[in-house]
């Protein structure tokens, strides 16, 4: 059995037209160049649908073969089989199975392994790092979104005292520090790494006639601190970001950033639910009702309109209120 091939000798770029013949355990070429070599010393490149195949000699010289069918018959006659990965790559069925298995593995890792890993990192993270994280966030917020509070000192003190009294009545209240700021982004409250809770003047004014609702919002922020959501979210974001880059970085940074963004929003919505739940229990322990949080959410919701749920950092207000009502 023999087929046409091009021979390159590894010394010059000359293309020799040759005929490749296999007899027993020995391959030989003849034509513009001639050479013999035992089959066991030759290396055959992987098959591809449209590419040529290379047969490489021990010294780096090689044959390039365009006649794919003829070469396949020759390989079959010599008993050569492609490697496992090469065969998997050529099969649509194997590809489909690999794709499904991959999707399942990624989903399982994300669902079960990532929360454990994030917990581990959060526990191992030195508190100095967390507090520096908090400082940096606070500085950035002060520079861009927040100004000094305009609330009278006695009003601030009153809110502080009430909240501290409530906190003292509950066993596992995390360490916190309450700060007042005027906001450029409307009524809001924020929990930062290492225990800062920022309360905006706008929110205090919005809930001026319902102090229980204000306490409920603060309790919700305590929930974020209790679960250390900020640190978890950083770990979660870094992990899904790296995974997105590894899978889709080839296409473009923008495309690679989309799935991590969606997952981050999903994480954020879950964190809000957890914080709501914590707040409900905390309020109950302090002698207040989860309904106060529902009332606060209702008031806050009046101040802005809803985006589609999957594009939002928070779950829909109606859903949150319904949940809180069930807890009562």
């Amino acid at each position, binding site marked *: 059995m023999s087929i046409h091939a091009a021979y390159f000798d590894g010394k*010059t770029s000359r293309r020799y037209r040759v005929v490749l013949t296999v007899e027993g355990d020995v391959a030989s070429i003849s034509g513009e160049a001639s050479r013999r070599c035992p089959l066991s010393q030759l290396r055959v*490149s992987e098959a591809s649908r449209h*590419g040529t195949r290379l047969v490489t000699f021990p010294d780096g010289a090689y044959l390039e073969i365009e006649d794919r069918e003829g070469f396949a018959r020759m390989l079959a006659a010599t008993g050569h089989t492609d490697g496992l*990965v090469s065969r998997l790559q050529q099969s649509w069925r194997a*590809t489909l199975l690999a794709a499904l298995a991959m999707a399942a593995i990624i989903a399982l890792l994300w669902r079960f392994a990532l929360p454990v890993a994030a917990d581990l990192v959060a526990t191992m993270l030195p508190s100095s790092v967390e507090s*520096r994280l908090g400082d940096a966030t606070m500085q950035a917020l002060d520079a861009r979104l927040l100004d000094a509070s305009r609330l009278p000192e006695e009003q601030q003190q009153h809110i502080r005292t009430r909240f501290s009294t409530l906190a003292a009545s509950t066993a596992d209240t995390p360490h916190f520090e309450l700060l007042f700021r005027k906001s450029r982004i409307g009524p809001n409250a924020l929990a930062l790494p290492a225990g800062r809770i920022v309360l905006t003047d706008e929110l205090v004014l919005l809930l001026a006639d319902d102090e229980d609702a204000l306490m409920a919002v603060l309790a919700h922020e305590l929930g974020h601190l209790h679960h250390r959501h900020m640190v978890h979210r950083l770990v979660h974001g870094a992990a899904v970001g790296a995974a997105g880059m590894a899978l889709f970085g080839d*296409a473009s940074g923008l495309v690679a950033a989309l*799935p991590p963004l969606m997952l981050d929003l999903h994480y954020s919505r879950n964190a809000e639910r957890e914080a709501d739940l914590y707040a409900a229990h905390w309020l109950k322990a302090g002698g207040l009702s989860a309904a106060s949080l529902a009332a606060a959410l209702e008031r806050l919701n009046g101040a802005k309109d809803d985006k589609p749920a999957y594009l939002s950092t928070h779950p829909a207000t109606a859903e949150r209120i319904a949940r809180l009502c069930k807890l009562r």
Partner: protein
Amino acid sequence: MSAILPATDTPFPDGQLVMVEPVSFTGTGAEYFRIWITNTFLSIITLGIYSAWAKVRRTRYFYGNTRLAGASFDYHGEPKAILKGRALALLLLVAYQLFSEMPGLLAGALALLLIAALPWLIWRSLQFKLYNTSYRSIRFGFGGSVSGAYVAYLLWPAIASLTAFLLAPMAHQRIKRFQHSESRYGASRFCFDARVGRFYMLYLKAFLVFMAGVIVLGLLLFGLQVALGKRGMALEAYGGTLVFMAVLYAWVMLMYPVFNAMLQNLVWNHTAIGPHRFESRVAPGRVAFITLTNLLAIVCTLGLYMPFAKMRLMKYQLESVALLVDGSLDDFVADAQARAGATGEGVADLLDFDLSL
């Protein structure tokens, strides 16, 4: 496949005949899809270790399907060498993450150290990549010195940033000159003759295209606002600005492939090996179109189109290049001494440099 054309261009002043040998690329999206899925799967279940083997498989697929003048390219990278490089890169990244949490001075020192190491890494990566590429059984190579790499990748970028980037095109020319004129094919050197002025023209052209796009998009959006305003549907100022920013962002994203296309043409039209010149005719508009439709298709298929997109762009870019063969391609000889270490490649790969070779 080859056509005989009488030489009319200046590169061939004595009026000989040259053969135009276009590059052809036979890789397909469907086949690369299978390779991508299988290899990503194996990389995941081996905790990333297989990724070095996957890289070799993918690269051999790309090279083996790239044909020029009746022969294809081959890749000889050793997976173990690449794995070592990647392990080193991972170590560097982890070290950087850990130490960047340290007090300011230490983190700064580490960042400086990394910056100082980059030219060396790029240099090793160029050596590795070229040495492990062969065509017609002759290996490519990189002869640039490490000091040359520091001048090109550290000194020139530093000068460019100190002159408010007025010298950026010049720095870019120096980098490309270093890459191309120090590249070897066997014992023969590549030669690069694009002057600095050409790079300034390139940047100017790209800037004009960019500004023209901004003006056209601005006028279009303004017109749309006015038209909608007549029906009482105009976006409020905030929403209008947001839409403009989004469109502008998309335009900036598109400028990247457009600029790269113009750069590819400039660089390859001024590169020669022996008496043979290269010719690159990428149409920037076409590349922009391919990039845009690729992105849309990737998003619509939840990422599954990605391998197809990659092959589509690669095919267009490669097949826009031709070698103008003056005489015979049979006479290149191998360089007996060439050897290259491997650490750079994996590192550069993980840190995601575009060496655009």
